[in-house]
């Protein structure tokens, strides 16, 4: 049995190293979803097989907030979907690992995302196909909170309950920060729980960095038969690196040498300069 707390720490280190190797990336957004993906991939929730990544019976995972893809890359590499050596090539000219994930290039990536508001309805389509085919697979989609400003999210949010897609689970990475500022300073999501409930979703709120809360939520799926489930995961953008946490400027910014030392120290990476 994998120690999920330790695994999450390892994933954070790998994310940081991968983005440093690549010379840039969405670090803070990637750190925000570490526990969510760790529990999904290592906690016997998402049933996928690295040896047969296109098994028709597999569960599907879609990262609708595609800019956080390094977390997914690190986990897929660690799980054996592709060789770990690829991580060091992130963002370079001949890599399979770009700044947003490409389903034609990266084994285990189910959907090419990057433009916000696309992956979620794409995942709804996969869940609908599962229902139409009477298959038992489940679909999980992680979306950003800022992404919920896109109208297409709400079109799909209306569609999924109408079709009773209880094989679908959306997880909102609720870190409350978007590219330029705190969401509430730009266009507030308001009563986000009530909004999704009003659209017909069964909603559960958890701490998105608490492994046991996430496990317990995932084990209760579906929250209600005949309804899609939504987990609002309360998270911290930049989680694990003190100066990035809660700070909007770190959406796409690289640290200097001094900050690098602090980050490595906090993440437990041996800093050799």
């Amino acid at each position: 049995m994998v120690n999920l707390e330790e695994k999450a720490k390892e994933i954070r280190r790998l994310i940081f190293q991968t983005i440093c190797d690549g010379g840039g990336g969405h670090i803070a957004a990637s750190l925000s979803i570490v526990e969510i993906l760790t529990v999904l991939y290592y906690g016997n929730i998402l049933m996928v097989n690295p040896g047969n990544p296109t098994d028709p019976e597999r569960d599907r995972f879609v990262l609708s907030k595609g800019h956080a893809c390094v977390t997914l890359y690190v986990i897929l590499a660690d799980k054996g979907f592709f060789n770990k050596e690829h991580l060091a090539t992130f963002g370079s000219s001949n890599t399979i690992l770009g700044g947003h994930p490409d389903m034609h290039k990266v084994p285990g990536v189910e959907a090419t995302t990057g433009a916000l508001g696309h992956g979620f309805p794409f995942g709804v389509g996969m869940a609908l196909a599962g229902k139409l085919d009477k298959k038992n697979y489940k679909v999980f989609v992680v979306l950003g909170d800022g992404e919920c400003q896109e109208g297409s999210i709400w079109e799909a949010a209306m569609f999924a309950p109408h079709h009773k897609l209880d094989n679908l689970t959306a997880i909102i990475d609720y870190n409350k920060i978007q590219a330029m500022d705190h969401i509430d300073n730009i266009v507030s999501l308001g009563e986000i729980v009530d909004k999704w409930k009003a659209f017909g979703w069964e909603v559960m709120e958890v701490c998105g960095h608490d492994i046991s809360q996430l496990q317990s939520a995932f084990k209760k799926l579906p929250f209600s038969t005949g309804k899609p489930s939504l987990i609002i995961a309360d998270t911290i953008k930049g989680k694990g690196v003190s100066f990035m946490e809660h700070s909007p400027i770190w959406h796409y910014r690289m640290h200097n040498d001094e900050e690098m030392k602090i980050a490595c120290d906090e993440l437990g990476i041996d800093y050799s300069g």
Partner: protein
Amino acid sequence: MRNAYISALYELADTNKQIYALVSDNGAIVYDKYRESFPERFINFGIAEANMISIAAGLAACGKIPFTYTISTFLTMRAFEQIRNDVCMQKMNVKIVGIGAGFVYSNLGPTHHSVEDIALMRVLPNMVIFSPADQLESRKMTFASAKIEGPVYLRLATGGTPDVYKDDYDFEVGRGVTLKEGSDVTVIGTGGIMYDALQAVEELGVQGISVRLVNIHTIKPIDKEIILKAAYETQAIITVEEHSIAGGLGGSAAEILLENNKTPLLFKRMGLDNVFPSGYGTYGEMKEINGLSKDDIVNQVKNIYQRKKIELKGL
């Protein structure tokens, strides 16, 4: 064209259980038979085109063959990024069926006139574009769409457009059809306006001008050879389309001619030149108001023919 499409779709759905009809609250009555026969394979998304396209891509990722359908402007324009990223970029087997090509929705006004859709769809990698001239081609293209494993845009007029083809013919994806041979001028057209072009060309024949008429039913991949051959042999080309002259059939022809160094003496694109469609009324009236009637084609051909004679004298 629409009815030919739906009856072909019905036949396809009858034999292939992966085929789904997806609509965005459009298709009352015409889809009735399909809905009765295959209720589990008919999904109405309501008025949410972008959602329909993304979900269609997700369905295709799981082996379904969705034929998405609504008015062309809403489908290709509202959902453009969904078509680009979710369908074309991921090479999903989704069919985009837009109805109301050109001015077909005449009196409904310019919000419903689809005159930029070819340009938009043409720039998308992996996309195949079909633009049928009549019911027969519409039927053939529906079957061809199902055979292609990947994105297809099918640009349909709506109601009863007159037949261009009197007899059946061997349809081939990407291969234009010479509807009439001629040596003085070539008219290259696409879509429902082929009927007007055919009438114009026949009238010009009576007047002693030999006009070749080429139907480009597949706009992408386009038949380069038929266009280059026309340039070489007739030296004067007019393109006709119910579309903006930028980026559509005329734009495609211009690109091909220049890049292949076979520019004709004279070249003219008929269509909308940097304007939205004007006027209301019937479909026929719309074509008149917007310079795309049979008489407009006749006049443009005469004009280019006169210029050609002058140019040739000068050589």
